[in-house]
C-alpha cells in the first residue's frame, strides 16, 4: 500500500481517538488492555482446546470435521491463528498478508467504512489490526461456506479486527462468521471493522452469529459497497446475553439493480443492551432492499433501527421491525426511518412491538397444547424468518443456531 495513503489514514485516526460514536453507550477504551498484535500463524485448528472448539461450534464454526466448509479463518484476540482455503478461486488469509501480497490493496482499505467514524474505528487503525481477507475470484462460486471465527480470549482485552471481503464480478461467496469468547463474567471488548466489496453480478451471503457474555462490549463497524446487479444477503443472530452491543452496518447499493437484504434475530435477556440497526442507501437505479428485524426481550433493552434512503429512480425498499416483549421487564424501541430524495421511489415500513396475541395462544391451546407449549410454538414461529435466496445448507444451520438458542430462552 502506498505510504501516502497509509499516513493519511493514521492521521485521520489520531484525530478521531476521542470521538464518541453516534450511537451506543460510550466505552472508555482506557479500561481495557490491548493484547499483542502478533504475526499470523497457521496452526491446525483441531488442536485448539475442546472447550474453545465447543464455543466456536455453537456459532457455526466447525473445526473437527470441516468437510462442509470451503475455507477457515480463526483469530484469537489480535492474532490470526489459522487460515485456509480449499477451493480454487477462493482466497482466505489475514489482511496483513493480503496487504503485502497485493499492490491494489489500498483500494479496499477504509473505503467502505471511514477510518475516523469514531474512536473504535480509530483504535482499529492505530493498532495495526489484523482480521480476515476473503476473496472470490471472478466467476468463482463457493459450494460450501467459508467460516471465520473471531475469538475474544484474554480477560479485560480489546480485540481489534479489520476484515476485507471482496466478491469479484459474477462470483458467489457464502460466509459464516461466529464471534464468541472464552470469558464468563469478565470484561472484554470486541471492535470489528468489516468492509465488503460486491462487484458486478456477484452474490454474497453473510451469516453472523454472536454469542457473547454479560460483561462484554461489542462495537462492529460495517460498510458494504454493491455494484450493478450485486447482491448482499446479511443474516445476523444475537440471542445470548451481552453487556453492550451496538452495530448499524451500512450498505451502499451504488450499482444498478443492486440488492441488499438484512435479516436480524435478536433476543435480549435481562442485563443485555442491544442497539442494532441496518442502513441502506439506494444510490443505483432500480436498486432494492429489505430489512427485517425480529426482536425479543426477556428482560433486556433493545433498540431496533432501520434506515433506508432512496437516491435514485425506481428504487424499492421495505423495512419490517417486529418486537415481542416476553416477561415483566425489558424494553424494545423500534426506530424505522425512511428518506426519499426524489420522486419515483417506493419505500415502506411496518413496525409492531407488543406481547403475544392472546387469540393466537388460545387458538393453539384449542388444539391441545398447554399455555407454555402454545407460547413457545408462537415464539419459534416469530423467530422463523424465511430467508429467500439462502442456500439450504446455510438455512439449516441458521435455523439450528436459532433453535439451540431458544432452548435457553424458556
Amino acid at each position, binding site marked *: 500500500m502506498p505510504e501516502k495513503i497509509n499516513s493519511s489514514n493514521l492521521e485521520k485516526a489520531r484525530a478521531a481517538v476521542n470521538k464518541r460514536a453516534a450511537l451506543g453507550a460510550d466505552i472508555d477504551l482506557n479500561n481495557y488492555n490491548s493484547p499483542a498484535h502478533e504475526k499470523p500463524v497457521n496452526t491446525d485448528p483441531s488442536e485448539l482446546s475442546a472447550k474453545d472448539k465447543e464455543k466456536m461450534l455453537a456459532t457455526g464454526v466447525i473445526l473437527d470435521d470441516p468437510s462442509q466448509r470451503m475455507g477457515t479463518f480463526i483469530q484469537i484476540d489480535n492474532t490470526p491463528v489459522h487460515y485456509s482455503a480449499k477451493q480454487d478461486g477462493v482466497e482466505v488469509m489475514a489482511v496483513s498478508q493480503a496487504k503485502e501480497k497485493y499492490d491494489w490493496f489500498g483500494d479496499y482499505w477504509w473505503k467502505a467504512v471511514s477510518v475516523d467514524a469514531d474512536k473504535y474505528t480509530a483504535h482499529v487503525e492505530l493498532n495495526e489490526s489484523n482480521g480476515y481477507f476473503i476473496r472470490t475470484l471472478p466467476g468463482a462460486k463457493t459450494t460450501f461456506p467459508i467460516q471465520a471465527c473471531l475469538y475474544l480470549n484474554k480477560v479485560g482485552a480489546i480485540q481489534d479486527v479489520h476484515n476485507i471481503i471482496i466478491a469479484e464480478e459474477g462470483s458467489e461467496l457464502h460466509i459464516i462468521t461466529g464471534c464468541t469468547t472464552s470469558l464468563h463474567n469478565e470484561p472484554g471488548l470486541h471492535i470489528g471493522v468489516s468492509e465488503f466489496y460486491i462487484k458486478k453480478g456477484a452474490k454474497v451471503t453473510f451469516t453472523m452469529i454472536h454469542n457473547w457474555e454479560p460483561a462484554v462490549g461489542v462495537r462492529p463497524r460495517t460498510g458494504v459497497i454493491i455494484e450493478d446487479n450485486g447482491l448482499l444477503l446479511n443474516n445476523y443472530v444475537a440471542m445470548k446475553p451481552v453487556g453492550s452491543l451496538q452495530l448499524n452496518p451500512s450498505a451502499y447499493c451504488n450499482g444498478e439493480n443492486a440488492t441488499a437484504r438484512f435479516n436480524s434475530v435478536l433476543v435480549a435477556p435481562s442485563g443485555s443492551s442491544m442497539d442494532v440497526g441496518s442502513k441502506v442507501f439506494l444510490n443505483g437505479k432500480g436498486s432494492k432492499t429489505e430489512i427485517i428485524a425480529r426482536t425479543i426481550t426477556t428482560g433486556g433493552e433493545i433498540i431496533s433501527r432501520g434506515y433506508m434512503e432512496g437516491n435514485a429512480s425506481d428504487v424499492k425498499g421495505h423495512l419490517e421491525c417486529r418486537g415481542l416483549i416476553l416477561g415483566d421487564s425489558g424494553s424494545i424501541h423500534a426506530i424505522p426511518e425512511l428518506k426519499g430524495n426524489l420522486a419515483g421511489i417506493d419505500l415502506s415500513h411496518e413496525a409492531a412491538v407488543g406481547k403475544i396475541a392472546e387469540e393466537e395462544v388460545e387458538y393453539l*391451546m*384449542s*388444539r391441545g397444547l398447554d399455555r407454555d407449549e402454545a407460547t413457545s*410454538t*408462537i415464539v419459534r414461529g416469530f423467530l422463523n424468518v*424465511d430467508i429467500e435466496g439462502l442456500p439450504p445448507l446455510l438455512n439449516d444451520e441458521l435455523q439450528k443456531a436459532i433453535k439451540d438458542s431458544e432452548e435457553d430462552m424458556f
Partner: protein
Amino acid sequence: MDSEKADKEMLLDIKDLVVSVDNKEILHKVSLSIPYGETQVIFGPNGGGKTTLLMTIMGFPRYQVASGKIIFKGKDVTVMSVDERARLGIGIMFQRPPVVRGVKTRDMVAACLKKDNGEELIAELAGKANMTDFLSRDINHGFSGGEIKRSELLQLSAQSPNLVLLDEPESGVDLENISLIGSLINSLLGKVHPIRERTNSGLVITHTGHILNYINARTGYVMFEGKIICEGEPLDMLNTIKEKGYRECVKCLRK
C-alpha cells in the same frame, strides 16, 4: 332416569348454562344433551348466542360461566381450561382463525396429532383435505374462505375429537368445495361406521342448512335471544324457518 345415569349416556350434557361476555349476559339458562354418536344442529338469527354457546363449550376464557354446568364424558368441565378440554376430546372449527406468522400448517397438524414421526399421517390427512400445498405455508396467512375451512378440518382430523363443534362450516365455501367439506366432516363424525358403532358427536351451527345435505343430524334447536326456544327434527325446522322465518319459532315458544 336419574341424572347420574343420564350423564353417563350423554357425551355432552349442558344444564342451565348462564354465560356472560364482557359482563353482559348472553346465554340465559341454556340446557341441551348430546348422546354419544349423535349430531345436532343449531339454527337461529345472528346475535342469538349460537357462537357463544360453542365458544363456552370449548372453554375460551372470554366466555364467563355465571351458573350452570357443562358435563363432558361424565366429567364436570365447566372450569377446565381450553387445552384440557381439547385433550379430553372436544374440538372446534374456527370461523375466523388468527394468522400465526412463522407457524406452518404442518406445525399445527403435528401439534394436533400429539405424536412424533407423524409425517406420513400428516401427508395422508393433508391429501384428503386437499391441503398438501398449504403444509409449508404460515397457518391461515392469505387463505381463502374455503381454504380456512379445509385447514380447520385437517387440524381437527389430526386431533380426532369425540365432540366436534362446527360454526357455520359451509359459510364462504364454493359449491366445488362443499362436498369435500361435507365428507371431511362426516369422517370426523365417524359417519362411515354404522350408527350403533358411532361414538363421535357433533354440534353444528348453520344458517343456510346446506350442510344438512352432507351430515346426518337427528336433533335441531333454534336459539333466540340467548335461549333455546325450540327443539325438533332439523329438516322440518329448516323448512319452517325458510317459509316463515324465525318469528314462527318465537310464536312456538309463546304457546
